[in-house]
């Protein structure tokens, strides 16, 4: 079987998108849909909202690309920041607060494997604790541990430096630990 050709870099797809090639934007969508969806879902805790907002992230980003023609040094970070802004707007508009009991686990729609009922309970507590963090600490945890971004990539998403990212990561883990202990009590 012939090796798969290398995927074009983001910059090339962005340039072609700006020239009006819809398929190039389709390729960017395919590349980032999973991680943007995961990011939004981890923050809004609703599959329907996450789907609506993920779609909106990609539409708004396309609008920005063709209308404002920005110089984008990191498309991934750009998408995350668009997603973050929409999440903030979402909470501002809906003024929704999720109590610990309303927040589903990240894997809420997956069939439970035989042995994992107890693990599932732990996961649920963990996810609820993450969703009770302040937005910026939540972002660090989701970028670093759920989407597997490096410190450098996370720093770009948060528009800060790597040093701050490490400190925020520490603060987030400390708070999570505290939430989990309170939940146990």
């Amino acid at each position, binding site marked *: 079987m012939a090796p798969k050709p290398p995927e074009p870099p983001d910059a090339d797809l962005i340039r072609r998108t*700006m020239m009006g090639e819809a398929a190039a934007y389709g390729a960017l969508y395919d590349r980032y849909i999973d991680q943007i969806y995961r990011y939004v879902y981890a923050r809004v805790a609703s599959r329907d909202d996450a789907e609506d907002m993920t779609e909106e992230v990609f539409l708004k980003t396309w609008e920005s690309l063709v209308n404002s023609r920005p110089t984008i040094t990191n498309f991934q970070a750009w998408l995350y920041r668009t997603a973050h802004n929409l999440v903030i707007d979402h909470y501002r508009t809906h003024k929704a607060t999720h109590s610990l009991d309303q927040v589903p686990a990240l894997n809420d729609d997956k069939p439970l494997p035989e042995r994992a009922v107890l693990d599932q309970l732990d996961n649920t507590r963990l996810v609820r604790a993450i969703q009770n963090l302040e937005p910026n600490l939540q972002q660090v945890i989701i970028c670093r541990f759920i989407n597997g971004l490096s410190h450098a990539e996370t720093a770009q998403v948060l528009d800060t430096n790597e040093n701050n990212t490490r400190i925020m990561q520490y603060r987030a883990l400390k708070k999570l630990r505290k939430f989990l202990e309170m939940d146990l009590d």
Partner: protein
Amino acid sequence: MKDDIAHIIAENLDAIEHGRITLEEAIARYPEYRDELLELLPLALAIRDLPAVSPRSSFRYAARGRILREISARQQRPQGGRLKRVFQFTFPQFLLRPAFSLAVILVLLVATLSAGTVYAAGGALPGDALYPVKTATEEVRLTLSDDQADAALYLQFADERLEEINRLAARGRYEDLAIAAQRLDSQMESAASLLDLYEAEASDQYAQIDRLYEELEFTYVLLAALEDNLPEPAQYGINLAMQASSKGQAKIAELFPNNFPPGPPGGVPPGQSGDTPVGPPEGKPEGPQGVGPQKTPGPPVNPGQGQGQDKDKDKDKPESPGGPSQGNTPGPPEGAGPPEDVDPGPPDDRGRPEDTSTNPSGNQPAGGKP
């Protein structure tokens, strides 16, 4: 102190993540921070081990189709941005959803356009005054049908784009080819995504797909023959149309590998194009159960048979964290921009100060600011 432990946590997590040390070794390295490391490192690893969530396949493909359709539609109506912003301030969000917007277009079409206009628009070509009416009518039809029916519609519209390309080429209107080519590309992508999603139903469209495959091939060969004799400005549209045709063929070959084996673009090697512009490529084998890509085949007993090994059956499987783009930190799109003779987007929408959602400064992404 806080900085120290923050860096120690980060450093050890990286080392564990890359398999350089174990959790126990990390804790043993810093006995003075033992308690904190014991609390926080396993917690970080537990978050990393949370089951990954992936979007539903139906959402993934439907949203992709909607986004690309919306992009094509907006590229066809460059003045739409201003009107939409007025609506954004006036109506609740649900009124702006694509389905509702297009339903409104339908009502407006019925109310304002005579049946004769819509009929006349059916023969319009890109660049004609009535072409936007034709594409708007297509959008309405897509909105009013479900995803499965959309696959057949996309195939039908792709067929129409090929017809347009052929007519434009025959009239020497090469500058308008790019519009038809981009719509062809987008509509083939959407059709392929939906056929892939509803593969059981794809057999219903087999005859349509077979005919389209041949027309894609014919168009490619026709354009290839024209390409060398045209001035450079005309070649831009020709090239886009050729790319869209060969990509369309490749998409079909990917979906039905037994019936449409991948081959050279256009299915005919360069240099032989004048001999057999129409018809199945020489190398096409018989399909499963003897159903092959004859000129007008009936539906195969199971046209999708044999594709199982090649297709990705694990779309719903969670991917590894980070997705396929890990470590992808591209540089700025230096020089990124269209050629000077290509209008990349609606000029009225660019840099409008009141449009906060489209980020006129270019320094912040779209979406509201916190």
